[in-house]
């Protein structure tokens, strides 16, 4: 009886439910028209920083012949982007191969392939080599040929066969088919293939040709030289091909995933470097003593003070939009032999110059942070412990006015035996040491003794501090 009564109420509950849903969503219906888009904001400057931070130059370097190597130099003016899906955007940067033997730098002309870097958002970087079948390689780029895409983080390689701008769907079979020719080992999910490049020197100009992937055949095309010059094979490359292929990049016709839209970089805003989320430096240092334990406490340290000024070459204490002001930053890097550690002092929670100028503090690995000024000096062995202890026992409270990132850096330098100039500035709601003033002070600061060096780029914030894991 009671159950029947409940059942009679169900339609009423359903109506009530619908009304509730409608009412609860009402706010969305009356709001003004705003277009929702997924946006992956990133600029060329940011790509350059990723390139430096992830050490892409070294990771793409290949042996050429004894005593020389091939470097792939990015052409940043060639950047194109492709939105793959809601969470992934590709940035394609063409690269120029250059042979460097330590004495001479020679550009290389590739006859049948186009190399490029592919950035997937800000976390993955690939080097791609698109091998074309046709002799007109530019028109066939990402349309007809084979793409070898190597993940520079995992070292895994993927192969994609393109036909008329579309990737043939059976990628694994393609890779398997190629691998059967030269496979050197095979595990459950990965196979290895060999790639052979050939070069010829035509009266000083180097040309490079690539055998079809999986073969080591001498290039079918004749030498580009006017006279008969032989092709020489350079060191072969062994790649691991696994079943974890990324989405291949598309061509002008939307190849690859079939959903991409390429837009030229010339449409990008020029000043994208300062306000992008992706510019953020490294992670919070959770154990500072462990982080610094790599240093020999009985040896000297090369200490660098880095300053990112809010406005380049200016004492301004902040710049930009008031709801997202760039207040700059000051941090330090310690170097001993091959070991480098980079440390910056930050507030760990909200602050406000008017009402709440303190916060618990936190140390951050500022590797990759671009600076506008730096000042370096040798810390004698007798002061190394002082420096390490000053960093390790950092203030637990960050104070916008009395103990901020600049104060921290000044204190570390002082522990190393050098009193840096310390000019106080003002900002809305407060004042104190700050990156704008310290940066300007360092530009003219020349202590009387001890080896030191001052560095500043010609314009803008362009050089980066990098820690390593040695």
């Amino acid at each position, binding site marked *: 009886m009671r159950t029947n009564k409940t059942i009679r109420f169900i339609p009423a509950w359903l109506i009530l439910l619908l009304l509730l849903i409608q009412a609860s*969503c009402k706010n969305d219906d009356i709001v003004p028209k705003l277009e929702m888009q997924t946006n992956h904001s990133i600029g060329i400057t940011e790509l350059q920083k990723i390139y430096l931070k992830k050490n892409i130059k070294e990771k793409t370097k290949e042996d050429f012949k004894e005593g020389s190597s091939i470097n792939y130099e990015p052409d940043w003016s060639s950047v194109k982007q492709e939105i793959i899906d809601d969470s992934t955007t590709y940035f394609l940067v063409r690269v120029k191969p250059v042979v460097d033997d330590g004495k001479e730098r020679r550009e290389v002309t590739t006859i049948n392939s186009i190399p490029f870097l592919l950035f997937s958002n800000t976390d993955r970087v690939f080097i791609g080599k698109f091998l074309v079948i046709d002799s007109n390689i530019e028109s066939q780029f990402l349309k007809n040929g084979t793409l070898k895409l190597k993940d520079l983080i995992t070292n895994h390689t993927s192969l994609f066969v393109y036909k008329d701008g579309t990737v043939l769907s059976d990628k694994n079979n393609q890779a398997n088919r190629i691998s059967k020719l030269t496979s050197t080992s095979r595990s459950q999910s990965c196979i290895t293939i060999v790639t052979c490049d050939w070069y010829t020197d035509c009266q000083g100009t180097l040309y490079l040709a690539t055998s079809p992937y999986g073969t080591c055949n001498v290039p079918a095309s004749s030498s580009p030289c006017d006279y008969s010059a032989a092709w020489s094979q350079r060191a072969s490359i062994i790649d691991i091909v696994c079943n974890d292929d990324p989405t291949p990049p598309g061509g002008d016709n939307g190849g690859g995933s079939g959903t991409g839209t390429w837009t030229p970089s010339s449409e990008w805003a020029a000043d994208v470097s300062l306000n992008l989320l992706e510019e953020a430096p490294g992670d919070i240092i959770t154990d500072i003593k462990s982080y610094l334990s790599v240093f020999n406490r009985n040896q000297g340290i090369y200490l660098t003070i880095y300053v990112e000024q809010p406005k380049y070459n200016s004492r301004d204490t902040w710049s930009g939009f008031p709801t997202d002001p760039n207040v700059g930053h000051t941090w330090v890097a310690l170097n001993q032999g091959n070991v480098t550690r980079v440390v910056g002092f930050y507030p760990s929670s909200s602050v406000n110059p008017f009402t709440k100028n303190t916060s618990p503090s936190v140390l951050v690995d500022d590797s990759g942070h671009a600076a506008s000024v730096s000042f370096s000096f040798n810390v004698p062995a007798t002061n190394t412990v002082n420096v390490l202890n000053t960093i390790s026992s950092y203030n637990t409270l960050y104070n916008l006015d009395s103990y901020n990132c600049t104060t921290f850096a000044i204190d570390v330098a002082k522990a190393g035996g050098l009193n840096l100039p310390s000019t106080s500035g003002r900002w809305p709601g407060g004042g104190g040491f700050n990156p704008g003033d310290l940066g300007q002070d360092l530009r003219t600061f020349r202590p009387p003794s001890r080896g030191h060096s001052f560095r500043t780029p010609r314009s803008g914030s362009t050089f980066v501090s990098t820690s390593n894991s040695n």
Partner: protein
Amino acid sequence: MNRTILFLLSILIVSVNCSYQGHKGLIKGFLSDVKECNNFGAIRDKYQLITGDTLIQQRNEFLDIQLNSLQQYLKKVPLSDLVITRISDTSKYFYEDVKDGEIYTISQKDKTRIDFHILTEENKIISFTTMNKGGIRVFMSY
């Protein structure tokens, strides 16, 4: 008993269905109000931007400066050109310990620069002001 379960289920469905869009809707309403309304006191009250009890005068002064800046920006940009994006990786943002904080970036269509950030929690705007320290954003408290 059954009716209670049905009622609770209804509330659950409603909250799950609309919570995500609610934050974007809240932000849209906030931006629209700031663009159109010169009475910043009314905006402060409507969105309960003040969360503490002390230094009310200083907070109001600070908020009005920020609202005025935001209004100047919004008057130059059509609302339809604004792109609101929820940030999934919040590790580069420092802010007060809010329970279910969500961070949104505001940028303009076809522009690569993020103009500002908004921190929300439980359908409430916690902060729309950050300090940019080389890419790490520290939200300002009110």
